[in-house]
């Protein structure tokens, strides 16, 4: 039961982007197309799962004072692995995500979960937390990217979905569109939350 709880809370109740508001930089930067969003989401999920497992394994031998540098080294090691694997097997995706792959190291979600969850829970529940949070992150990225890609280039995952006469709203895939889309999505989340609590 608890395992399932940890697994599902990342989607709605503790969604890392819309509710906890962590990891904004990659969310806004790579959500120009659904393809990028999926790539980024899975890269971050992999790092999150692995670092959560390792950090909860070593939580008893980690000195409290230097725990943050230790977490960062663990995370950076996995990020380097992802970086090299992606460069080797998916060079096009690696190129379009660019600097945001090494920047997964400073993605607040990963360090945040290490600090808030993995260093005081068992390996198994940290694994569930990593999977749940990672998929929640991917899921939210895909939502933002879907809106931006359909409005901005009239396609979804590369397929044409808008009629031929549709004139793409270029601003949606540029920087301002990212901020405004996420702003409205968060407003909607808040509206849903307020309705439920009333």
């Amino acid at each position: 039961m608890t395992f399932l709880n940890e697994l599902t809370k990342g989607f709605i109740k503790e969604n890392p982007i819309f509710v906890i508001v962590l990891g904004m930089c990659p969310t806004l930067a790579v959500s120009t197309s659904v393809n990028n969003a999926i790539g980024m989401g899975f890269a971050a999920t992999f790092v999150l799962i692995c670092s959560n497992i390792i950090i909860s394994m070593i939580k008893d031998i980690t000195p409290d004072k230097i725990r943050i540098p230790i977490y960062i080294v663990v995370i950076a090691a996995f990020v380097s692995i992802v970086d090299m694997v992606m460069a080797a097997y998916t060079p096009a995706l690696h190129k379009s995500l660019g600097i945001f792959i090494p920047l997964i190291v400073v993605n607040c979600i990963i360090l945040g979960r290490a600090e808030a969850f993995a260093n005081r829970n068992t390996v198994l529940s940290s694994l569930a937390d990593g999977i749940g949070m990672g998929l929640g992150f991917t899921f939210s990225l895909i939502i933002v990217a879907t809106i931006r890609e359909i409005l901005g280039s009239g396609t979804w995952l590369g397929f044409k979905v808008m009629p031929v006469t549709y004139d793409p709203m270029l601003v949606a895939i540029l920087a301002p569109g990212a901020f405004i889309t996420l702003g409205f999505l968060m407003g909607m989340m808040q509206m849903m939350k307020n309705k439920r609590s009333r």
Partner: protein
Amino acid sequence: MGYLGKLFFMAMTAVFINNYVLSRFLGLCPYLGVSKKLDSAFGMGMAVIFVMTMASAFTYLINTYLLVAYNLQYLQTIAFILTIAALVQFVEMVIQKNAPSLYKALGVYLPLITTNCAVLGVAILNTKATWNDGTAYTFIDAVLNGFLSGIGFTLVLLLMAGIRERLEYADLPVNMKGMPIGLILAGVMALAFYGFMGFKI
């Protein structure tokens, strides 16, 4: 174009055209988190300028004389983040000992900077950036780029904080209060900054 002209070009790019926050999406967490009050935004901005300049210098040296020299580029991410974390810790200790008043002003923000992706972003981009003629950045260029990027970050942080302080008194729909309106504001600001892209230097 002389060296001064190049520097002007770099300054315009870092502060306006390719602003780290609004067009490269780096450093958004502090941008959205610490922009509620003007004085805390100022403190954060100063701390970021300082750390970015120092981090650019150190990571440039480490990259050139350690990583590239011994063919260890694949360790770049780990080496840079460790350098930045150690640097922030060191700066914090030095300021605490020698300038208590400065420490009081910046203290809270310093640890946060380790996970500010703009700092790591500048360090990584400095190793990849080139001038128009294809030459790589020298040590001085890298340090200046770090400094100017910090200025660009501080500029938009202060602008944002100024607007958000006034927004406190605005009559907003309940659901849009806080983060949503902050993001939409950032979007409008980014739109305004797009106007600078037309500049040809």
